[in-house]
């Protein structure tokens, strides 16, 4: 895999560079196109929407997918089949709780989540998948129904762009909402820091998994959360609840790394238990790794 250099288009995938772009659509386009250019050099990845086989036309099929060239030669109607055809329905669940506002770098977790969600939406749209989104904290703040219409993408991006982090987190609400309003199988992408009880959270996910949804959980963590680096005792204020906890430098050094690792593992194990994918994202890293993980995920589910 080629390395990312300043002259490479993939340099745009760096979060701090993306943060300088004002329009989320531009960001998404920059990410995806930069990412796709990079992909040409890799044999591992391809579009899931690639042609796979022909099958005879059946009543009810979309006439747009009849291969008229084959019909001209053989006078038989065949339909082009593409991979991912059955999963061309993606809903992005973006956590906009206050904890997502945390960031020790130029880009906080929520901004990173916005970039990621927008990029995924744009990528899916490029593959002609229907894209929808749910913005949630302890309530569902915004819901955009999945649609393949081109104008819908702008609506999704607009919803993502307009979201602001506040309040707490409740995963039951968005998952229930999703179950209520979407009964079609597809891909569910959850972007959150997952500061919640893993078991409780997965109880909300479980119905989606049983209904045949492919679920991918992007857990966004800031480097300042993975390794806070406080050497002295410090009074830490919870962004969601406002609660303050005075912790010692020794705790930060010795106990906290174990706890965060246990929590990540718990989320991961819980995700695995319902057949979901869990991807840990360090917000200091470029977005292409997330997109790569997404594509690998799609390939596995092919």
């Amino acid at each position, binding site marked *: 895999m080629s390395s990312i250099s300043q002259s490479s288009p993939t340099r745009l995938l760096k979060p701090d560079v993306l943060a300088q772009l004002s329009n989320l659509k531009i960001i998404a386009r920059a990410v995806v196109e930069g990412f796709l250019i990079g992909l040409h050099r890799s044999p591992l990845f391809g579009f899931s929407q690639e042609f796979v086989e022909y099958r005879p036309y059946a009543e009810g099929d979309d006439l747009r997918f009849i291969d008229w060239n084959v019909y001209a030669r053989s006078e038989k109607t065949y339909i082009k089949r593409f991979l991912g055809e059955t999963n061309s329905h993606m809903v992005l669940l973006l956590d906009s709780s206050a904890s997502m506002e945390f960031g020790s770098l130029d880009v906080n977790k929520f901004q990173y989540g916005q970039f990621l969600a927008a990029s995924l939406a744009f990528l899916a749209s490029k593959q002609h998948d229907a894209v929808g989104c749910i913005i949630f904290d302890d309530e569902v703040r915004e819901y955009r129904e999945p649609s393949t219409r081109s104008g819908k993408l702008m609506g999704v991006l607009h919803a993502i762009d307009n979201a602001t982090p506040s309040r707490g987190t409740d995963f039951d609400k968005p998952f229930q909402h999703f179950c209520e309003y979407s009964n079609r199988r597809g891909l569910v992408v959850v972007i959150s820091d997952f500061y919640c009880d893993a078991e409780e959270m997965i109880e909300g996910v479980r119905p989606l998994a049983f209904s045949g949804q492919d679920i991918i959980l992007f857990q966004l963590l*800031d480097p300042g959360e993975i390794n*806070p680096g406080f*050497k002295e005792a*410090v*009074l830490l204020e*919870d962004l969601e609840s406002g609660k303050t906890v005075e*912790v010692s430098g020794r*705790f930060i050094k010795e*106990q906290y790394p174990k*706890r965060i690792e246990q929590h990540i593992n718990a989320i991961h194990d819980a995700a695995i238990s319902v057949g979901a994918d869990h991807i840990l994202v360090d917000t200091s890293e470029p977005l292409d790794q997330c997109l790569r993980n997404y594509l690998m995920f799609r390939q596995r589910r092919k």
Partner: protein
Amino acid sequence: MTLLAPLFLLGLASIALPIWLHRMSTQSPKRERFSSAMLLEESTQQTYISKQLQYILLLALRILFLIIMVIAFAKPLITKPPVIVGGEGSVLHMIVVDTSFSMKYGDWLNIASETARQIVSELENEDLAQILSASNSVEILNNPTNNQNELRASISKLTSGYGRLDMGILISNLDRIVTEYGNAVTIHLISDFQESGLPSKFADLIPDSLNNNLTGVEIHTVAGNDISNLYIESVDRINTELEVRVRSNITNPVETTVALQINGELHQQTMETISDSGIAVFRFTPAEYESGENRIEVSILNDEPLVDDNHRYVVIDNTPPQPVLLLTTNIESLPVKYLTAAVETSQLGFRVEAIAVSNLDPRVLQRYPWLMIDDLGIVNGTLAPVITEYLNTGGAVFAALGDRSVTLDTLPVIDLAVKTSLLSSDNSTPNTVARIDLSHPALAETSGWRDINVSRYLNLDAGENTQTLVSLEDGSPLVLERKFDRGRMILLSSSLDNIQNDIPIRPVFVNFIAEAGRYLSGEHQLQQHQIAGDYLQLLQTGSAAGQVIDPVGRDLLSLAETHRSQDIKLNQTGFYEIYTADSENLVAVNTDLRESDMSIMSEQAISAWRDAMAEPIQTSATAGPVNIDQDSIEIWHILLVIMGIVVLAESILGNKYIGSGRGYI
């Protein structure tokens, strides 16, 4: 406790400052926003309590520091509880015991102590008493009290030293103490009452306070009738002999043996018979003295009641005189004669080597600690830089101006411009001295400058680097000093031929040359023979710092003290060794001869003294109420020590606190 400056207590308001600062720092700990407290644990809680305690302790120390400082500024006094409250008609008995050298005689001091105890035991219930030790000075051994144990303890502290008691001075001191006390006092004077201790005027023995609150003076004599004492009155070096005079207070002829030790070795022992209350002269002929200072100890070997005065210590300086160069044009000239005579008369320890300037080998200059030039005008262009170099490297020059200087516009070496030359003019009216800088070492011991007449001299323009020591009436300098790098030069702006002035034949001349020579050569006057009880000033040795070793070989000064100017009390007899940066000196310390003279006041004289004091006693026996003795002690220095401890504790605790990572103290 009382406060001398209670207004300073307003400073206690400053306590609010640390409290406010601590409060501020407590309220604003370092806060950080964090995504979720879900994975955190209140892990500082356990250490927080101990830290809080440290924090409170730190605050308390800071407040304590301020309180102590404010109280220290307010000058607190602790008033000691009154020793006793005397009732109406009570009297303070001042028991004054002679502890001078003569009280070492036999058991006189024991008798005096016993007498004091007797007086104490006879005190009436309401009476107070105080013990005083009298010698060179009066020492109060306790505050007025009627506590018998305390008084007896004070009496047991009495020891006789080497000091001398002057009865006139003692009465004067007691007068002052009694007057300050302000209430009824009876003085009990316990002494041997030597005649040598009496004042020249009998009236000085009568306290003035007899007309005020002194109710009486009781005289207790400890000396008996049969007194026998021999003591060495003098030791003189006469040519090659040592003449020792021994005086006897014994009424019968007595065979006396006297021994001479030189530098610790017994040299000679002689026996003579001294007639009743007479003097005997013992003569010793020491073979050879050692070069430098010799320790001469003369001892009477007879066994007698007072043995401490049987030794006499003398220092004999056998250092050969050092040469001092006198540059001249004519070694037979009058200035040479006058200068040579002055140097040798002054016993400076120098001998003059006069040499014609034409015969001078400049290389020999460095051999001489100082040199003289009878006429600075003889220094030619070749010699001038040599003498300047000599001065810059630490040499010293005494110079006068003669005929050869008359024509010069600028004097060589000293580089002074001549404003007017009156050296060869016929000035009929002689000039006299108008101003003398007696603070200068070369002039401090001189006198008689006003008597001299100066008719001719060079009026010099004293520059910035030149100090005028003696100036004439017209303001022109007569004696000047110019300092060079490490050396100095003293210049007389006239001649030494007794023609242009009469300085060489005036008494001041020898003194001036002696002091100037001592100053220029770096030699300083140290009194080699001193009386026990006097003070030795290290400054006299020419250096403000040095070490002093007493007769038994102990260092009297600590290492730190050796760097400071010290006055050392000579409280032993024998040889003191004084070591300074550039010299070693011996000082012989002996007892005051007057204390050895055991002529005691006659009974008639004592009764006359009593009678003289009796009359006022009857008229002034009005005992007033006794003061409550409330001695106040200032405690600011104690507070200073406590403050130091508090600061130290605060520093340690604060440092520990900061070190533990709190960071917001």
